[in-house]
């Protein structure tokens, strides 16, 4: 089972190319000031989002992270609406109310990026528990980084998922660092060891290889879908860019240029492209570039929200809060 747009290698390469080019465009927009507040670039980790989403169906759901653009695009969100969201426009996925760290598209099962490390995992467990109760064959994928492994609530969530046999696919994107802190210095034991301690089958895969990620995700997702309980997938990957766009200004030295270069040698897009005929790759690249031009046009044409609507949607029930102005 798979999302139709990720059903074959060409589709998966296309999605990875879309994420890469989208993120490059977002970097430009941060530099030019069209995106305020910056972003956490997903560049380098594309094979994880795409490989995992290739194991999901349209009805499946996911929770994402501060570094969420890749997950949101891989699940099928419209790049124009995501870009509009990053630029704070009314036609953004969240009507300009969420921005990069909260991008969501509930119609596609994207329960949101999340600004708090580890926060998505227990939400995914609850959504999966509800799916079980409602008798839906749904899997909820929960993405998080190596940094989240040290959030207490994540360990609570693993336990809940285990005792409830909740259909959750926990995806740890181990990119080696939580901001500047190396995972090796921060994680006692291992990622998979933690999952296994709760009785959750865990696998480590090469997160730079979209086919390896997809195969492992498929195994664990189908097992969860069939009622076998949660699975845990650690994807070894690397972010090629800064932790956050602001980091560029600081000239930090927590990673050596050699280390970054060595991982860039393993660019997941290059290996995915190598499995396809060069002409097909070229045509996909041209296609994506065209798609992103249209996305940029769409986002730029979208209006900025009216400040008078800043409180809209605060309450689902329509309650209007008092204004902060003097009476």
């Amino acid at each position, binding site marked *: 089972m798979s999302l139709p747009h990720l059903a074959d290698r060409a589709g998966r390469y296309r999605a990875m190319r879309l994420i890469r080019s989208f993120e490059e465009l977002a970097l430009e927009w941060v530099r030019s000031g069209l995106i305020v507040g910056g972003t956490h670039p997903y560049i380098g980790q594309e094979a994880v989002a795409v490989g995992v989403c290739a194991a999901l169906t349209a009805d499946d759901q996911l929770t994402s992270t501060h570094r969420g653009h890749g997950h949101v695009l891989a699940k099928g969100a419209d790049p124009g609406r995501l870009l509009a969201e990053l630029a704070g426009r009314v036609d953004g996925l969240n009507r300009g*109310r969420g921005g990069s760290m909260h991008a969501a598209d509930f119609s596609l099962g994207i329960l949101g990026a999340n600004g708090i490390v580890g926060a998505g995992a227990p*939400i995914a467990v609850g959504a999966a528990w509800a799916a079980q109760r409602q008798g839906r064959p749904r899997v909820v994928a929960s993405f998080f980084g190596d940094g989240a492994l040290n959030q207490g609530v994540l360990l609570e969530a693993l336990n809940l998922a285990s005792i409830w046999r909740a259909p959750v696919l926990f995806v740890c994107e181990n990119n080696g660092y939580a901001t500047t802190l190396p995972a090796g210095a921060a994680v006692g034991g291992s990622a998979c060891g933690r999952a296994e301690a709760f009785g959750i089958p865990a696998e480590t895969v090469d997160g730079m290889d979209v086919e390896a990620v997809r195969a492992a995700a498929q195994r664990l997702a189908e097992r969860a879908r069939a009622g076998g309980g949660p699975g845990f997938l650690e994807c070894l990957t690397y972010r090629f860019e800064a932790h956050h766009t602001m980091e560029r200004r600081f000239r930090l030295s927590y990673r050596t240029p050699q280390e970054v270069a060595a991982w860039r040698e393993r660019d997941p897009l290059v290996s995915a492209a190598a499995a396809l005929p060069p002409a097909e790759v070229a045509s996909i690249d041209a296609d994506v570039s065209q798609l992103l031009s249209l996305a940029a046009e769409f986002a730029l044409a979208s209006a900025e929200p009216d400040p008078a609507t800043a409180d809209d949607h605060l*309450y689902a029930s329509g309650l209007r809060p008092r204004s902060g102005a003097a009476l």
Partner: protein
Amino acid sequence: MTLLSYAKAMNRALADALAADPAVCVFGEDVGAGLAGLTLGLQQRFGAERVVDTPLSEQAFTSAGIGAALAGMRPVIELQIPSLLFLVFEQLANQAHKFSLMTGGQARVPLTVVVPGSGSRSGWAGQHSDHPYALFAHVGIKTLVPATPTDAYGLLSSAIADDDPVVLFAPAGALGVREDVTVPLAPVPLGVARTHRPGTDVTVLSVGHLVYQALAVAEELADEVSVEVLDPRTLYPLDRAALLASLGRTGRLVVLDDSNRFAGFAAEALAIAGEEGRLLAPPRRVTRPDGAVLPFALGLDRALQPDAAQLRDAIRAVMK
């Protein structure tokens, strides 16, 4: 005559909600056994799949409630201790409350959190005696403090039916109250205050179990002063219109509030009265002290909570 206890009223509200809507479910510790009374008998009646005994993982099961709410359920979370609200402040203030706005209206989180036995329980000391309702009202989460059994039934019913997160405090000081129920139990709308006793000289705005203290003092001083006892029932959104209408009749205000004084609920009520009302005398409040930590010894525990003598003094002060 049927005497309905506060605890039984809450239990009945939850049972009726579970019976009426398959989306309603309960997460909490010892809810199967019904330790806190709220869920007594409900797991037997509705099953362990709907009344779910959770491990001691408040943060995860509160967030799981959020996830289930996002997936169409209407979870009720029971917390055994008011101070556990501090543990799940992230989940409520930073996640549940923010989803609707941050998603541009895509998501709703119909989650109800109930604390059966909030405030002092006598002898439970510092970490089990808080009454942090003002904190949730400040955040903008719908915050309820029913005082009577019928209001406990009615407000819990409305909370569960509401599309936003709601925190309901059931004060330990009110759990034992019994009421002669003469009309059918029914939902009570959020944001609507209740006048327990009409009066013309002073409005005593009193929260939760303190309503009974206000009524007792009003009766005691009846020959001296006509006290109107107003119960907000919902602290947020507050029924400002009812408060201002009462002040229009009395022109004087005393707030009786079991939360901490600084930036507490009473502070907000005084601000509203000052900004929007016309007062004949400076308003007064009777509250816990700033930053209160209730000590263990019963005399010390009581010494930090609003008492009848303080209320009498405050009423006389605004009447001067």
